[in-house]
């Protein structure tokens, strides 16, 4: 397997981004913790590495904030698992966060691109 190589390319999640990623994953429908982790790793083309301990604590935190709700159920391969689904409140929060994020990345992009030119000229 290529696990070892993958590990080197992995990037630790930015502080505060895990919540958005979890919420975004759950838009597609209820999912258990392991599924969420898989999904984040796959969708980021294995760049993001999710610390599972942090993931479960984040799930708990989101549940405490009533953005998601958890319920014990049975998985497709007949395993007992805790399924999380997005609440209406969570959906609103996600929309807000997505637009925040987009503004942030646009602004970051502007600055990083804008600064690249002059600084290289000076050099």
């Amino acid at each position, binding site marked *: 397997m290529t696990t070892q190589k993958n590990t080197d390319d992995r990037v630790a999640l930015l502080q505060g981004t895990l919540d958005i990623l979890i919420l975004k994953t759950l838009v597609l429908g209820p999912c*258990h913790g*392991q599924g969420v982790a898989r999904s984040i790793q796959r969708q980021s083309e294995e760049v993001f590495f999710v610390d599972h*301990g*942090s993931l*479960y604590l984040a799930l708990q935190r989101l549940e405490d904030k009533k953005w998601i709700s958890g319920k014990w159920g049975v998985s497709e391969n007949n395993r007992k698992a805790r399924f999380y689904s997005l609440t209406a409140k969570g959906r609103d929060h996600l929309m807000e966060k997505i637009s925040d994020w987009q503004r942030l990345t646009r602004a970051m992009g502007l600055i990083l691109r804008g600064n690249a030119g002059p600084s290289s000229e000076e050099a």
Partner: protein
Amino acid sequence: MFKRRRSVDDFAEEIKAHLELEADELESGGASEDEARRRARAEFGNAQAARERFYLRSRVEWLDHLARDIRFAFRQLRKNPGFSFAAIAVLALGIGACVAVFAFVDAALIRPLPYADPQRLVHVTESEMTSSKVNISYLDYLDWKRLNTVLSSMDVFTGWDALLSTATGTEPLPALRVSAGFFRTLGVAPVLGRDFHPGEDSLTGPNVVVISYGFWQRQFGGNNDAIGQTVKLSGAVHTVIGVLPKDFEFALGNSPEIWAALKPEDECEKHRDCHNLYAVGRLKPGVSVQTALANLQSIARQLEIQYPDTNRDRGASVMLLSKMIVGDIRPILLLLLSGAGLLLLIACVNVSSLLVVRAESRKRELAVRGALGASRGRLASQFITEGMMLVSGGVLPGLALAVGAMQILTHLISKEMIARMPFFEGLGANLHVLTFAAVLALLAAVVFSVTPILQSMSQDMRDGLTEGGRGSAGTLWRRIGGRLVVIELATTMVLLTGAGLLGKSLYQLLHVEIGFQVDHLATLHVRLPGAQFPGDPEQIAFTRRLLDRIESLPGVRAVGVTSVLPAYCGCNSDWVRIADRPFDGNHITVDERDVTAGFFRTLSTKLLAGRYFSDAEDASRPRVVVINHDFARKYFPGEDPVGKRIGDPTLSPESMKQIIGVVEDFREGALDDEQQPVVYYPFNQYASSGYEVIVRTSQEEHSILPALTAAIHQLNMDVGVEQGSTMADHINDSQTVYFHRSTAYLVAGFAALALILSAVGLYGVIAYSVSQRTREIGVRMALGAQRSSVHRMVLREAAWLAAAGIAIGVVCSVAFGELLRGLLFGVRAWDIPTLVTVAIVLGLLTLFASYIPAHRAASVNPVAALRAE
């Protein structure tokens, strides 16, 4: 509504489910079952840490730790009740002593005077060549007030022996005469009625008074209609215009109840050279005491030029009112506070040494906890918690002790002194005192936390596990601790000796030869109102009637009058000169007493030569005196003084008196004074409006007092009769006895504290030493040492410390005794019995304190002691 919190088990279940799902997925990707499980777990990371974080997420971590620490600390303290009790008791004593003394310091030195902006209030006096502070005369006051540019206001006050006429008789009242602006200068307004109007203190002003809150409550039942009512004071009717606030106090005025407008009607106030007033002033904003002094001194110089006859060499003196009020007591209080602080420090050192002993026996526990992963921070927080618990255990009983001590200390101050220090009334645990206690507690907690932390940090944890190591820190502590104990013992020795000497002095003082029979003597102070009894004839006539009346009362065996009660003070002294003798320029100082013929009979004194006065010897007869034996012995050695004549230092003809009798010495002066020459003048030739009446009774002397007062008031309602007393009480409560008793009790209190502290300190050091030497003792016993010899070994160590402490203590005690010499009476500074007794007490204490650790050492099981390492 509360949602049920998700359990830790449920969370663990979820993680387990995750691992299974992950393993399933890996297995379906082709891995073997075992491989899949291993990789799932590896992928997850530290599942235990996640579970722990989940557990901690729901609670405040430090609070959780604290709760555990407290539970643990509590178990530790309970496990070792001897240690806990000793530590808490010592701490409570230290804090109690410190807080009690601080309450006095707070009342006198920290709490501001109850006046507006008290930092601007100054006490203004005149000054002379010989004395820096003398009263100011009324005319000087008017000039100073008018001319000065530094005071926004200046007012004067002076004492007034007012006599209040009541339905049942006449009552002397402490009172002051004050100028009209007095209360405005202090910044105090009456709670009821009004202040004096400006000008009400002029000669033509009305007779108006402001009364104290207490007088208002007592005399008018606190009714609002008191304003406008009248009171008869010293024969004149005065209208009440105002009531002062409840918390108002004026320390310089002997707790007055009546405040009258000061009209310059006293003869003294008409002369510039008669000084009878005290002045207070309020500094203008921004003016310093120095500036004010300079200004007033320049005015004084001006007056000196203007009135050279009366104002020569008269300057000015200005000091802050607060300083004036607490000036005398300030150094005493600070000394007491440092003493109490020192005691607390010793107490803290002792508790620390106990903590060190205990930490030593817990070395293994700490090492195990450290090895199991407890961080140094967690171990330290355990010590901090234990320290805090000890302190909080000591603070409450400490505060209770402090409140008790405040009561006792207040009783050690005589009534007259309390009247001059009203700020000591209502002393208690106020905010300042509680804050101080809290600060002390915090400091103690810091010391108690830091000591074991430092100790544990100085040791290698592996040493603790093997329990064989003996770091240099241990030896160091033994040495330091040992020295501290020697100092403590020496201090205790000094204090105990001091207490012993003072106690012995008190005993000697109370058993001093008075010279007359003290029991069955009742005393009264009588004051005749000046308006009715202006001169000697009226006073003598009334006094004769008074004595006749009292003599006729049932139970009265004899009655007499004197100007000053015996066994009180060497005051009212006078200079005399013996006639028909070459004058060497030295005056003879004698105590002068004006007594009636019945005085000697009442005291049953012994006549040595000549005769006593007769009642008939008044101004119409030749002047005569009786002298005491001391006078005769010192100035008429080998001669018969009867018939000799004495006079004033110039032997002016009108001052000449003939000696008609010599009376055996009895104590006129204070109990601790040397016997002095005394001259007795017949009252009927030297009458006065105030005197003491002494009555010899056949019944119990207290019981006759009401009858005496009633009898005098039957004769004349307006005569003031002060609360009567008895000769025995008078002597027991005299300033001298009070002073000796107070110092003896105070030093004894400190000595008792020091005794307890040094016992604990000694115990701590010996116990530590035993704990350090457990293995050595085991070896000795394994090699055949007897238990008794181990016992002796430990006691020997204690004995050395005690011997050193006592030896140093003896030297210091003798030095301290020399310092105390002024306070001692009938006892030498190196009183051998006291020193021996104290040394024995300390020796016994040493034995007692070291018995427990010695016993523990002797019962060491050699096998266990050797195997434990």
